[in-house]
């Protein structure tokens, strides 16, 4: 694979809890290739946010990285100290958060915040202001110059999210991490933001790591997808391959639960029965076994993550040739 910008290898993270270590991430491996959009899907509590926070080294104080490495442009971020991370964040790696209503300082004008964020650059105030206005225009905010004087509360949710994206892209980073940036927005805005993100990817030439639990958004936006379940990667690969021919029962179940896929009239939307396993006392075998409709004898052993097709891999015993069907 040519040009991998972010390479997470065997990353394990656990949280200290009174009951013992909660193994939030176990042997996560994933890659973000250059100029590609990679989506991470999974239900709440599967470790999506922990993964991002581990990547940008802003973990909660009770979180420990127990193994693995996070290679960003071949440097292990886990070895970076605070100073080195601060020099990297906002310049090479930027992030957009879930709730646009909360991501701006409420008492400073948007212009001031956007100018302040450029503190690393040696530009004059008017140049910085011009750049802020250009960025706002780039993310599609009309009359950008005048709107710099407004406070965050004077903008709608969708506009605030675009401002957040503008701020994150200010330094033209090589990796943009977006943590459910459209979850708090309504469907029409979601489409706008996604379109804009893809255009921006082409304009700025950055890779995007896009976290969502909305499969439709992932299918629309991403080149590759990583499906996470209970702190493990259960399936990963090209979006088309994974969504058209899912080889892990969890991915299949997720896809079946997406209302967009339902063809017949139904009173109850499909769900996946059961709950995520206890991450303090993990089951011996496959983490999904308890909720899996295709459970069989082999599931009491841990499945290997193995290649299914050329651009597609999954962790399920069903993919071992002799066991299928």
């Amino acid at each position, binding site marked *: 694979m040519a040009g991998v910008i972010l390479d997470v290898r065997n990353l394990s993270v656990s949280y200290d809890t009174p009951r013992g270590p909660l193994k939030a991430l176990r042997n996560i491996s994933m890659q973000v290739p250059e100029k590609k959009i990679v989506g991470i899907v999974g239900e709440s509590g599967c470790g999506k946010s922990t993964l991002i926070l581990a990547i*940008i080294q*802003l973990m909660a104080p009770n979180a420990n990285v127990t193994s693995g490495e996070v290679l960003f442009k071949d440097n292990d971020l886990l070895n970076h100290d605070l100073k080195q*991370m*601060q*020099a*990297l*964040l*906002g*310049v090479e790696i*930027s*992030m957009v*958060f*879930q*709730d646009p209503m*909360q*991501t*701006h*300082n*409420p*008492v*400073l004008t948007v212009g001031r915040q956007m100018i*302040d*964020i450029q*503190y690393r650059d040696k530009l004059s105030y008017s140049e910085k202001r011009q750049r802020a206005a250009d960025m706002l225009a780039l993310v599609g905010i009309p*009359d950008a110059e*005048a*709107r710099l*004087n*407004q*406070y965050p*509360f*004077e903008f709608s949710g969708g506009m605030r999210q675009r401002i*957040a994206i503008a*701020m*994150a892209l200010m330094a033209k980073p090589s990796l943009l*991490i977006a943590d459910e940036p459209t979850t708090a927005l309504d469907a029409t805005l979601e489409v706008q933001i996604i379109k804009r993100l893809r255009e921006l990817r082409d304009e700025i030439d950055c890779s995007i790591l896009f976290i969502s639990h909305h499969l439709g958004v992932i299918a629309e936006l991403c080149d590759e997808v990583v499906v996470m379940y209970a702190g493990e990667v259960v399936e990963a690969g090209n979006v088309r391959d994974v969504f058209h021919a899912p080889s892990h029962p969890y991915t299949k179940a997720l896809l079946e639960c997406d209302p967009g896929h339902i063809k017949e009239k139904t009173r109850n939307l499909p769900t996946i029965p059961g709950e995520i396993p206890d991450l303090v006392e993990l089951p011996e075998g496959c983490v999904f076994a308890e909720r899996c409709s295709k459970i069989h004898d082999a599931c009491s052993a841990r499945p290997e993550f193995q290649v299914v097709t050329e651009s597609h891999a999954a962790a399920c015993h069903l993919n071992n040739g002799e066991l299928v069907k």
Partner: protein
Amino acid sequence: MATSAKTIKPTKARSELGDILHHLVRDPLGLVGLIIVSIIILSAVFAPWIVPYDPIALNIPDRMQGPSLAHLAGTDQLGRDTFSRVIMGGRVALQVALPTIGGAIFFGLVLGMIAGYGPKWLDNIIVLLFDTVRSFPTVMFALAVVALVGPSLNTVIFVIMVTSIPTYGRVVRTLTQSLRNSEFIDAERSLGASVFRIMTVHILPNVLGPLAVLAAMDIPTVVGLEAGLSFLGMGVKPPTPSWGSLLNDGYNLIRNTPWLIIAGGIPLILTTLGFTFLGEALRDVVDPKLRGRGSK
């Protein structure tokens, strides 16, 4: 009002401070507060030029007179002009109030932000410190300090400042704690902002608004405290006029001449009202969301 481009442009020229002032004047409460406070400050600054008589010059033949054209607020038991003493007393009041509040805000801000953002053990130490200081009644603490170093204006300033720090520190600490977990701080951190930068650029302006309001409302308390300490004979020494010593004299002579206590009390009431109005109006104005709620 619609937020079209045309209505936004004029705000560009105005600085943030000018913006606040602009909205303050539009609020009737703020305007009244601002006028009263300006009068008090101006009269304190220009006191030596305003006073018709020397406030400490004795004039025994004219003692204990009622208000007249010659003595606007009468004279006291030593024949000193009460009006002059009230004006000069305002100087003392502000000389105490401003450095005290300023110092208390500064130390309260620094300690409060450290406690709110710093590690848990540091927070515990600072809170313990605040609680210790707070557990002394101000007057008792003042008595102890005065017994050690003797009564003077600086003692009063020091004592009131030290006992006011926890009030500000606690507010700042609580605000900082709630802010540090807010998403915009996380967003800043994810964009590589240092702790210093988060504190000064993002937490400070969020804390300053409520603090300014607290300070405006605290000034009358401090003036009252100074008056109280002077009244107890622990503050300003006798010949120097202060509102507290005026009240003290007036209290002793309330049967002979009520003018003294009235003249000493009115500026105290006015200061309280003025700064409270200003504080109330300021609260609405410094929060951009509340700004212009009634004035537009």
